[in-house]
């Protein structure tokens, strides 16, 4: 029964998602912007600044850590070292995709239902709160994940096209895979849950999204930490990070289920 219900919710969410221009645009445009921006930034840096950029202190620190993590890098010429560094750092930029997509889908789907009154009708059916939330979470997380993976693929293809192919063995590492296949799902679910939490108070989608976008800040902080080389994220660290966020997922799921108490939705969300 639960599976049938969750499937039903999932399909309905997608039917609504892809018939709404704004949401469909967010799901497709955000990844495009993130990937496009990343490539332009890396291309500009390698073309115009090149190896000389490595002399700045920030890059020095980061490079030292990179060399510890991937010793082979030390053998490369300076401007290729820079490229490897930047390409590795792009890893975390990709996290912006599941974050923004999941938040948009979550807030959109909940606030729209709240405003139209369909949520009230839904809450009078035997659907369980966790089924509803899981259905919606998957409806948000799956496109977010798929778009992230597609973006990662596109990014690699473009990198190949730009003649950076030889460097891929320094980029497509265990850390890269861990980020894509463990960290990204964990971040997508956390984003979704924060989207739900934001929606429970907000009266319109934009307000909810603004609240939920707070989660973008830690992601940006993560990117900052990596760029400045304060911490270099080795596969082990990424694993630990994914685990920590996984725990946060669990806590936020429970919080979301609690915030989603039917009574308070019926009574307060009007």
């Amino acid at each position: 029964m639960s599976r049938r219900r969750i499937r039903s919710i999932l399909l309905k969410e997608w039917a609504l998602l892809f018939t709404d221009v704004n949401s469909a645009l967010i799901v497709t445009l955000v990844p495009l912007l993130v990937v496009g921006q990343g490539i332009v930034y890396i291309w500009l840096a390698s073309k115009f600044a090149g190896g000389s950029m490595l002399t700045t202190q920030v890059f020095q620190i980061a490079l030292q850590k990179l060399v510890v993590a991937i010793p082979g890098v030390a053998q490369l010429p300076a401007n290729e070292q820079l490229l490897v560094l930047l390409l590795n750092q792009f890893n975390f930029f990709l996290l912006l995709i599941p974050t923004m997509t999941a938040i948009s889908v979550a807030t959109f789907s909940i606030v729209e239902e709240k405003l139209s009154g369909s949520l009230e009708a839904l809450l009078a059916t035997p659907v369980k709160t966790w089924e509803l939330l899981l259905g919606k979470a998957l409806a948000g997380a799956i496109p977010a994940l798929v778009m992230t993976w597609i973006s990662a693929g596109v990014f690699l293809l473009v990198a190949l096209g730009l003649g950076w192919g030889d460097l891929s063995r320094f980029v497509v590492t265990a850390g890269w895979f861990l980020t894509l296949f463990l960290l990204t799902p964990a971040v997508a679910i956390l984003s979704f849950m924060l989207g739900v939490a934001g929606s429970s108070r907000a009266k319109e989608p934009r307000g909810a999204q603004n609240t939920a976008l707070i989660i973008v800040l830690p992601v940006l902080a993560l990117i900052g930490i990596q760029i400045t080389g304060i911490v270099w994220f080795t596969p082990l660290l990424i694993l630990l990070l994914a685990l920590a966020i996984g725990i946060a997922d669990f806590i936020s799921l429970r919080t979301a289920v609690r915030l989603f108490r039917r009574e308070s939705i019926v009574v307060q969300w009007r």
Partner: protein
Amino acid sequence: MAVIETFGLSRHFGKTAAVEDLTLTIEAGEVLGFLGPNGAGKTTTIRMLAGMIAPTKGYAIVAGHRTDRDVEQLHEIIGILTQTPGLYDRLSARRNLEYFASFYPSIELQFQVEKYLKLMGLWERRDSRVGTFSKGMKQRLALARALVHEPKVLFLDEPTAGLDPEAAGEVRHLIRTLREEGRNIFLSTHNLNEAEVVCSRIAVIHTRLLALDTPEQLRRRFFRRQIVVQLEALDARVMEVVKKLSFVQEVRWEGSQLILELSDSERNRPELVKAIVEAGGRVIGVSEKQYPLEDVYLRLIREEKGNES
């Protein structure tokens, strides 16, 4: 057998009482009209009975389930038409119905969806987006949604509010059809005609239950029979004389009409007419006053407000 029983059911929001000490019993096969003005607590009561919000005091049993405890089982056997239709505008009528139907265990989904789309006259438009529907069509679709799983108890929250007379008539007709099928219906409304036409009993509510009776009994209880004497013109002398008659209990002018309550409205009539004529009154006609239920309702509410102050 009682389908709905409430025991001192109350709901407060902070300091405001939305529903206070509601105790009533609704038998199987009844269509109960739940009548009250804006803010009377109709929606709040329906939400409590449908297990969507908890009472702050008292409890209710609907089809054998405590509404604050057996919520899941309760939700399987009730249907609700919420005050706003709450449909997905970008989905077709059929998709809307299939979606909601998919949450009920053991129903023949496609069969039920088709049955109610047809019953509600929406089969031809089944694949159109609901956003293109008129208000009346949306309301009928929402009604189909409330019925698609064959609920034992149906809650209708102001089913004709905001519809034009024709669309409202269609919805009322559908409700009467459901009544003939012997369904248990709890219908909130502030439209008296609707309650009178559709319901077997009427509960008048204004936070508290003010009355619960059949439409006819309500009338009889709240209005003694009144006699209307139509005169050619208002006449002070007539009033003087009539007031002095021993069997006249109450009298007032309404335009050129005298409205009276008599000790015996049949036997005192000839005496009354005689006295009026002798006082120089020119009588056009004598009749009995008919009360629309509206007056019962207004009067109850006025009484309640009088008690409050």
